[in-house]
């Protein structure tokens, strides 16, 4: 429950499960989270997406929805110059050694388009039947998952936020892969408006989470039990490496900058012996590919903290290589919080 505080600040209870970097902000503000504005242009976009677009998408042909998504992507990438500028600045921070200014400019535009396309796919994904999913999608490296599953310890799939994620998860469910997708309900973000934090985000979670029965939420009290149960049943657990919302975050070098990464999944691997397989989902609902890379050769050390530190760096390098191969497919826009990316 959130109660209204004085203007410019909102009282956020601990049940919001704030990530550690925001908890520090909350403490510094005497239990109140600051927010920048009451209302923003972004709220209009979210409102249009949640209501007219989502409702219309239940009856329109898929082709038309995709065209609408493409059109919105162009509009979004071209009109929201401030946002694009912020993305460009952060992309420059990440790709400073490997891309020219012009390439980064194009990438910032593509990144915004990919984000819109991913949102459109979230509307489409619930309407695509199994037959069509199999027609539009393909899997590469399934033998890598099977080899990891043969160890009978379950498998932890590690990936970043890429634009093919939504349809890929539907595809994997459709072919009967026993996957749990680790996610979180949308929590308070001081960069966003009060309207978004207080009304739009909770509604968003309510609308979209009801379709995803295989999602498990880090806020759930039985989250850990569900994970170990699923791993012991030789199932797969999918986590996002570029989502800094774990209770245990570790700072790692990421494209030469500092970034916080979740570490609890490595502790789970250390404790249960579950192997880790990198996954990458690219494309969109019209054509997508899921790649499973070879099982990561985790360096075996007896100390848990050392195990995490050594192997997390290895996984971050794999994520970097995936991003460099598919920079425009990476949903950088979802990871653009200034609190987590520093010089």
């Amino acid at each position, binding site marked *: 429950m959130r109660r209204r505080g004085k203007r410019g600040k909102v009282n956020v209870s601990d049940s919001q499960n704030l990530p550690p970097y925001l908890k520090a902000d909350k403490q510094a503000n005497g239990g109140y989270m600051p927010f920048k504005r009451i209302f923003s242009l972004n709220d209009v976009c979210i409102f249009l997406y949640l209501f007219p677009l989502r409702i219309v998408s239940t009856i329109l042909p898929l082709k038309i929805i995709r065209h609408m998504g493409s059109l919105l992507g162009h509009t979004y990438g071209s009109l929201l110059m401030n946002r694009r500028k912020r993305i460009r600045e952060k992309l420059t921070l990440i790709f400073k050694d490997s891309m020219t200014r012009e390439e980064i400019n194009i990438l910032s535009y593509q990144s915004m388009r990919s984000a819109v396309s991913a949102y459109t796919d979230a509307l489409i994904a619930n309407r695509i039947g199994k037959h069509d999913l199999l027609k539009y999608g393909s899997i590469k490296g399934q033998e890598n998952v099977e080899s990891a599953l043969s160890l009978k310890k379950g498998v932890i799939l590690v990936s970043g936020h890429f634009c093919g994620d939504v349809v890929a998860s539907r595809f994997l469910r459709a072919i009967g892969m026993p996957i749990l997708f680790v996610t979180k309900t949308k929590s308070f973000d001081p960069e966003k408006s009060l309207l978004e934090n207080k009304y739009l985000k909770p509604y968003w979670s309510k609308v979209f989470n009801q379709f995803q029965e295989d999602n498990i939420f880090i806020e759930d009290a039985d*989250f*850990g039990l569900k*994970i*170990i149960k699923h791993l*012991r*049943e030789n199932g797969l657990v999918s986590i996002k490496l570029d989502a800094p919302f774990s209770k*245990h975050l570790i700072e790692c070098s990421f494209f030469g900058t500092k970034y916080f990464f979740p570490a609890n999944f490595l502790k*789970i691997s250390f*404790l249960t012996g579950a192997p880790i397989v990198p996954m990458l989902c690219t494309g969109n609902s019209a054509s997508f590919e899921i790649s499973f890379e070879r099982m990561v050769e985790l360096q075996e050390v007896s100390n848990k903290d050392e195990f995490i530190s050594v192997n997390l760096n290895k996984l971050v390098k794999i994520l970097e290589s995936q991003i460099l191969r598919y920079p425009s497919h990476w949903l950088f826009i979802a990871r653009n919080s200034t609190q987590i990316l520093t010089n």
Partner: protein
Amino acid sequence: MNLSSRENTKDRISKVIIRDLQLNLREDEISHIKKLDDLFGMDSVAVIELIIGLEKEFNIAIQPGYLDYQIFRDLDALTDFINKLVSVKKGSDSSS
């Protein structure tokens, strides 16, 4: 199940909790806490450490079907559950 055996199991569970979750508490403090999720927040790793620690301590294997939140959040329910598993194991060991 007699009372002393139950208390003994409870003490051993408390030891596992302190040792494996590295809590700065005494055993008697834990036995007064009814709801374990109040103690360590039932975070993903803590509960996994507890399960693995209990399996080692009591030399048992907890099957996935028994990994139930209602059991693991309550110290009394957990004590009864572990006692049951231990006696089943003793029974199967003696019959074989």
